[in-house]
């Protein structure tokens, strides 16, 4: 664990060395701000629900921009050779990088403090849904960081890694949203339709935004994150045999 933390610390510092991190924070802040201001109307509920609904989509595209370099940059830059001849295991490398990505997600979500302060100044917000919605976003972020990490272990190109991660994220959101809506799948197999709906990230997130914390959603996110991290470890290990 100590080695993973050492790796996470380095990776986290490296994230902020790149302008990509600031571009991501800027885009995220802009998106949140616009949605918040649009819904910021006197007489409305003092919540962040509309903001949460928008953020969960933003993360589909923004998190891969942070995670795309995690392993691909080590491969293209050649630092992987030194790293993998130090007494560090593949799971330690993957967990370290994932923790760094999570650290970034937390910083990103930290910018939500601003709209919360505005709400606090003008009304009495209900903190329950705000806390649960933010917790849900951390889980969604964790899953997307794992997806990006997995994609970056596939290739030495950051662009390819980004596209691959966005592709997976879109599959987990758009595809799993639209396909179960089709008539043929409703007629063909309601069980498959239910399974596909279960896989939809945004559907799993919806309850968090409403203020509901359900163990089943935790299981979904933790399992998904674990699977992609496991895949990343296996890809990294397989580099030795290719």
């Amino acid at each position, binding site marked *: 664990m100590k080695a993973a933390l050492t*790796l996470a610390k380095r990776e986290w510092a490296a994230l902020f060395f790149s302008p990509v991190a600031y571009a991501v924070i800027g885009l995220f802040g802009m998106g949140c701000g616009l949605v918040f201001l649009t819904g910021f109307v006197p007489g409305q509920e003092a919540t962040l629900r509309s903001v949460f609904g928008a953020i969960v989509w933003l993360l589909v595209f923004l998190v891969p921009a942070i995670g795309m370099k995690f392993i691909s940059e080590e491969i293209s830059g050649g630092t992987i*050779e030194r790293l993998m001849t130090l007494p560090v295991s593949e799971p330690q490398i993957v967990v370290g990088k994932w923790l760094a990505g999570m650290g970034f997600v937390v910083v990103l979500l930290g910018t939500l403090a601003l709209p919360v302060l505005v709400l606090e100044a003008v009304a009495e917000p209900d903190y329950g849904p705000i806390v649960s919605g933010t917790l849900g976003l951390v889980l969604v972020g964790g899953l997307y960081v794992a997806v990006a990490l997995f994609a970056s272990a596939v290739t030495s190109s950051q662009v390819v890694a980004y596209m691959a991660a966005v592709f997976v994220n879109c599959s987990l959101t758009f595809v799993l949203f639209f396909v179960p809506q089709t008539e043929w799948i409703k007629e063909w197999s309601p069980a498959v339709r239910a399974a596909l709906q279960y896989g939809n990230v945004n559907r799993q997130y919806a309850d968090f935004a409403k203020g509901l914390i359900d163990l089943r959603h935790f299981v979904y996110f933790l399992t998904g994150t674990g699977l992609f991290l496991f895949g990343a470890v296996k890809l990294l290990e397989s580099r030795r045999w290719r």
Partner: protein
Amino acid sequence: MIEAIRLTKRYTPGSPPAVDEVSFVLEPGTVTGFLGPNGAGKSTTIRMLTGYLPPTSGGAKIDGHDTLTDAHAARRLLGYLPESNALYPEMRSVEFLHFVGKLQGMPRRDRKRRIEELTERCGLSLILRRTVARLSKGNRQRVGIASALMHDPPVVVLDEPTSGLDPRQMSEVRDLIRDLGGTHTVLLSTHLLPEVQRCCDRAIIIAGGRVVSDGSLDALRDEALRTGQAGTVLIEAKGSVEAVRTALAGVSGVDQFDATAADETGWVDAWLVSDRGVDVRDAAASALQAAGLLVREIRREVPTLEEYFFRVTDPAHTPSRELAEVPGRVEATGGDA
């Protein structure tokens, strides 16, 4: 301490091997040069030795720990400078050394003490606080070497450590490597023969993925003399060209000779080629003296290690015969130039 056991690497199945059954054992405290032209398989062998690349067949051990199945223990004993020496560009030199030290399990106090030592030994004082991205190639190389030595490992593998360094830095690094001998087992990969001559006790020469020569530097020098070109003797004498030719014609053991006027002052340049291993300088000097000619230089061109290196790494060279002949080595005779 380091053991390569029939290491073989094929990058694609069925292709000719990049490294072909390379075996050697490095004894503790020795500095061994791993020498070969570019593309000979040096880096591939080293990557297999350090456990970065799995061999197609064969294996490697560091102090008895297999570099693949017992990788963690093997890596604890190893300090490695990869050929690419890739560093994280955003880190300061001192941060990078702390990073490597931490991953090697060194407590903070030890890391600080060690960085002070290495600052002195590797000449880092001016670059310690600078960002790696802003360092020159030579300075980056120094940071890379320092990071390989960070946890004071008993086994040090350096892949072309002096590449990108200026002559002064090269000399400093070579001194550093030589000082590691005795207490560390060092494998120094290079394509520069002078580096091996300066730092190493032993040289392993590799070409076309195979070991073509392996022995102490003295043994290799003897081998160079024994198997090298026939000896050439260069002479400068005063007199007529004809007189010099006549005198040299009487020397026994000479295959070929000739003489030409060097300038108008009466000095004549002559050369003669004798059989391999036969020193004809004494006989040539006597013959010229008997003819009443003044001699100011008689010099034998000795086959050098460099010439030997070129010869054994030549793709047309067949290594097996050369190696088989090593036990019956002929002592070099009076070869002081």
